[in-house]
């Protein structure tokens, strides 16, 4: 059925308003990235008169931007994939099984989201130092320590959200797969996961972005060579000056791959994987 006209218009206007809301600061960032330093905090103009691409060149030298970028990509990718993997298993258990301790587990896991991060920081650092001394694996200045930390940070939400998405996948699908002879895990992987793929993609994006943007723990758990972008960008604020234009230029540049990733991934956010499957 075609949508009513009034709804079409509401839709267009609504989308435009939201797009402007989302996009306006980005436009300001772009113009700021192209201004000489003195003008960034100057009077606002929609189209600035003096433009320069110098910030896009200088930004690679003020901080080791490329190195930080690689660190961030590695840490975020591994942490998000690992987190979603672990979370899927746990979410399947929570969603499909009624076992002792299910409620406790869920609440305890959720309660970790209720504590300000600063409180975890020092105890966690001490734990990592002790573990490193015991096992010989460097956890507190390496990417590994950061990956484990981020993986765990994103687990609670990932588990809860995936359990929510899995809950909305009808049990009949599991049953149908089992009738076809698959075991419980087989049913899960072959049938349920593809149907829940939009949710899985969304949660992976969440896990990636959380790791990408985390600052507090990265500042303590990394050294120069393992530092991530979120922390590293603050290096543009030096003792003598803050290179606003380079900050904007760097932020836009490092976001390009992420946005391209979104563009590619959002085709998984499609309907129809359930349509007609329950017959």
């Amino acid at each position: 059925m075609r949508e009513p006209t009034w709804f079409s218009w509401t839709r267009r206007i609504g989308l435009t308003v939201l797009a402007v809301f989302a996009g306006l600061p980005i436009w300001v960032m772009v113009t700021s990235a192209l201004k000489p330093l003195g003008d960034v905090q100057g009077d606002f103009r929609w189209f600035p008169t003096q433009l320069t691409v110098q910030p896009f060149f200088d930004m690679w030298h003020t901080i080791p931007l490329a190195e930080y970028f690689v660190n961030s990509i590695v840490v975020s990718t591994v942490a998000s994939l690992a987190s979603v993997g672990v979370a899927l298993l746990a979410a399947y258990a929570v969603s499909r099984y009624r076992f002792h301790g299910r409620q406790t587990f869920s609440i305890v896991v959720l309660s970790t989201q209720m504590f300000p991060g600063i409180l975890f920081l020092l105890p966690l650092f001490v734990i990592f130092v002790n573990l490193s001394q015991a096992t010989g694996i460097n956890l507190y200045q390496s990417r590994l320590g950061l990956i484990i930390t981020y993986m765990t940070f994103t687990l609670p939400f990932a588990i809860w959200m995936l359990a929510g998405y899995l809950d909305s996948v009808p049990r009949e699908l599991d049953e149908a797969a089992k009738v076809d002879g698959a075991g419980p895990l087989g049913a899960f992987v072959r049938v349920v996961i593809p149907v829940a793929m939009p949710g899985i993609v969304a949660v992976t994006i969440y896990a990636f972005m959380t790791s990408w943007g985390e600052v507090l723990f990265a500042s303590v758990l990394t050294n120069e060579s393992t530092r991530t972008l979120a922390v590293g960008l603050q290096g543009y604020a030096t003792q003598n000056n803050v290179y606003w234009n380079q900050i904007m230029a760097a932020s836009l540049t490092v976001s390009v791959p992420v946005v391209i990733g979104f563009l590619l991934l959002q085709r998984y956010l499609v309907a129809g994987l359930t349509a007609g499957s329950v017959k």
Partner: protein
Amino acid sequence: MHRFSLGPRKLLGLFMTAAVIAAACGGAATTTAPVVSAPVVSAPAVSAPAASAAPTAAGAETTLTYWASNQGTSLENDKQVLTPELDKFTQQTGIKVNLEVVPWSDLLNRILAATTSGQGPDVLNIGNTWSASLQATGAFTQFDDATMNQIGGKDRFLAGSLSATGAAGKPPTAVPLYSLAYGLYYNKAQFAAAGITQPPTTWGEFVADAKKLTTPQHWGLSLECGSISENVHSAFTLSQQQGGAFFDDSGKPTFNTPQNIAAIKQYIDFMQSDKIVNPSNAEYSNGTEALSDFAKGKSSMMIWQAASGSLAQLGMNAADIGVAALPLPDQMPAGGKKVTSMVAGINLAVFNSSKNKDAALQFVKFMTSTPEQEILNKTYGSLPSVSEAYSDPAFQTPAVQLFKNILATSAAPLPAVAQESQFETLIGTAMKNMFADAASGKAVGDSEISSQLAAAQQQLAP
């Protein structure tokens, strides 16, 4: 529409691969090679978590870990400045130095983590206002007379800088490395255009000059009113001039006194009754806005630490930059001190848990030696903290002489108590709120200031 035929095995495989990649990434904790060709600096060993190498006999291979703060135009710049000096040190003593430049946003967090866990560098830079608080942790080597003699003796240092190295009555917990002070920057061209020939020396002249320079489009003074540290530094200086103090000799807080109220009122009056400061300055909080206004000629004066480098980067004409000491009251109040700046600067500290104390002290001696002080402070635009270094012609310019005089004669250290950072946060925030009130037209008088100071003191934990 894709059919994802991931069997359980494939899923497990994916997970394992991620785990393996994660483990592989963990091993990559190597430091980047120094920019300048130099003897290879050993990376912190991946397997042994101890940040400092095992204790060795003198002359054998020792490696120190040094956390430098950001003093230059960028982290890379700091590395480029320091690496040749560190190489010199290695040539002289055979001790290698593993340098890491830590941005200011991270430094305190990392010091905290290092203090808590015992895993940290051997030598590090600290902000001098942190000295008393860090001293209280007991994690840093005290520079008693014996230790001081090891690095060349106490008397080499500027008295002003040395006063900001620890709690009163206790030995220094760090030695001064780079020194800084506040000055009154003024725009020579705008002063000349307004017919003012000399920078003001008293507050009366100051306000009169600023009023002359203030027009509907232009302001006589720009202040970073939203910045906690700028507020509290100015409040401190003005309070000293009034004869006030925020802590008494025994370390008890004395916030709510008439002298402190007078000092803060004077500062807020610049905006509210003298009207020489743009009310919009109440929002300026990122530490660069007042500087930027001055650089662009929107204001004629500002109170800042060494700023010529930043001003040049913002496009200000060097010939227009003038600097003078902060004015004094027309008539010094009873007990008032002729203080025009707090003692600002960076200190060098040694971690008590360091396994290479002797090597670390040698490094401290090197960094505070006269030639190094001359080289580093010249590059960074700060002031040497040892008096001998001032004989270098680079420090003979009028601006540097001015700051040196300020440091030597009219600078005082912030209260050297363990609650120093609490004091800064409470007073600075209270002043920010007062400026916000003044900017929106609410009167901020003595009683308002008094109640804010009393509330701040109440929140000071013992």
